[in-house]
């Protein structure tokens, strides 16, 4: 990753040098803050990914984190109507992207445990008791992971919190459910998890590439 990043830096510096003469006039018109004159001139014209060459604390991750509530967009709903009842649950997960790879065999392997995200283990926060696969989940924080297979995925809810996603302690599984997977869905470049309303509560939609899994949750 560092190598890629270096290459990118080198190439963008090269581009800056090569295109320097062309860029200068436009740059002086767009740039009002003097401290910016040199470093990120080539970049901002073509709207490229942001290069974090000046962040002294921590770069933005290549698989950025995201969070989905049920009811969906709960925080927005809440400010629109302060009487909105409390949220039911949310997932906090990181969003890897395909970057030209095929999901199966290039990123995930059938039968191998996957953290349902990237980086830290994916977290399910339950604010009101829910039921998954006939098992009641009390209010609390949990982690989620999956074992994808060709026809169905096993989704596990686990009690081991705040840990990196590569090491699951199966003895701390609270429940496992098998849910069917469908293909030929709209292709998702970024791994995506959102809740949708169902007759009995909500489905957690898990989508990446053209594969899609729905985890039914009873409220």
């Amino acid at each position, binding site marked *: 990753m560092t190598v890629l990043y270096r290459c990118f830096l080198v190439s963008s510096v090269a581009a800056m040098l090569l295109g320097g003469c062309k860029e200068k006039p436009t740059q002086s018109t767009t740039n009002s*803050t003097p401290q910016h004159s040199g470093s990120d001139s080539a970049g901002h014209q073509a709207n490229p990914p*942001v290069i*974090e060459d000046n962040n002294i604390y921590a770069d*933005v991750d290549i698989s950025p*984190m995201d*969070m989905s509530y049920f009811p969906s967009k709960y*925080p927005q709903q809440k400010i629109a109507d302060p009487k909105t009842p409390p949220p039911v649950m949310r997932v906090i997960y990181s*969003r890897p992207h395909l970057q030209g790879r095929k999901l199966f065999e290039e990123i995930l392997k059938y039968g191998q445990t996957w953290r349902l995200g990237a980086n830290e283990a994916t977290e399910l926060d339950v604010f009101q008791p829910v039921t998954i696969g006939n098992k009641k989940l009390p209010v609390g924080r949990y982690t989620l992971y999956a074992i994808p297979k060709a026809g169905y995925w096993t989704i596990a809810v686990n009690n081991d919190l705040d*840990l990196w996603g590569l090491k699951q302690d199966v003895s701390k599984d609270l429940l496992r459910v098998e849910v069917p997977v469908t293909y030929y869905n709209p*292709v998702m470049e970024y791994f995506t998890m959102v809740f949708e309303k169902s007759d009995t509560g909500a489905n957690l939609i898990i989508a990446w590439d053209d594969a899609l899994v729905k985890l039914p949750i009873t409220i």
Partner: protein
Amino acid sequence: MKKWLFLIACAIAGVHAANAQQWAPIDKSPLDQVYFPIDYPSLKVKGTKEPLRMRVIYSRPNKSNRQIFGSEIVPYGKVWRLGANEATELDLFTDAKIGGKKVPAGRYTLYALVNEKNWTFIINKETDTWGAFKYDAAKDVCRVTVPVERMDKPIESLTIDLEKAGTGVNLVAGWDTVSATLPFLF
């Protein structure tokens, strides 16, 4: 047979629609989380014995060549969500002392009232909300005012870092050329 043809037609239409589909965009201000101890999830996998103290969940807007503080992005004298999108969340896993006040373990929202020379960090009880649009001072747990520090080099993405400070932890928020520090005691 007709049924099959219909299904095949649907599948073709589906694939076609899939190809035409725009990739779901990633947020302009992606979410991030920072733990103390730093990188706790990795440390835990390696078997750390250090207690988990806190976590901040926040979105990270970019400077994108704009002036941030004192502009319309973060105006002076107004409560700011200290992030983007959802209000920034502070999770305390153990009780802490903030600005001399004991704050029990729990989930809170963290805001900042930004001025040119100082910031007031605000810890508030109303969680799972969007921005600071419905900020309610009646739900404040505590407020701490600290002086700002100026940096020579701007930080592109808003960054919240948790640093060890004696027996406590400093929450350092930095963006553009300004940073401010909120101390926690454990």
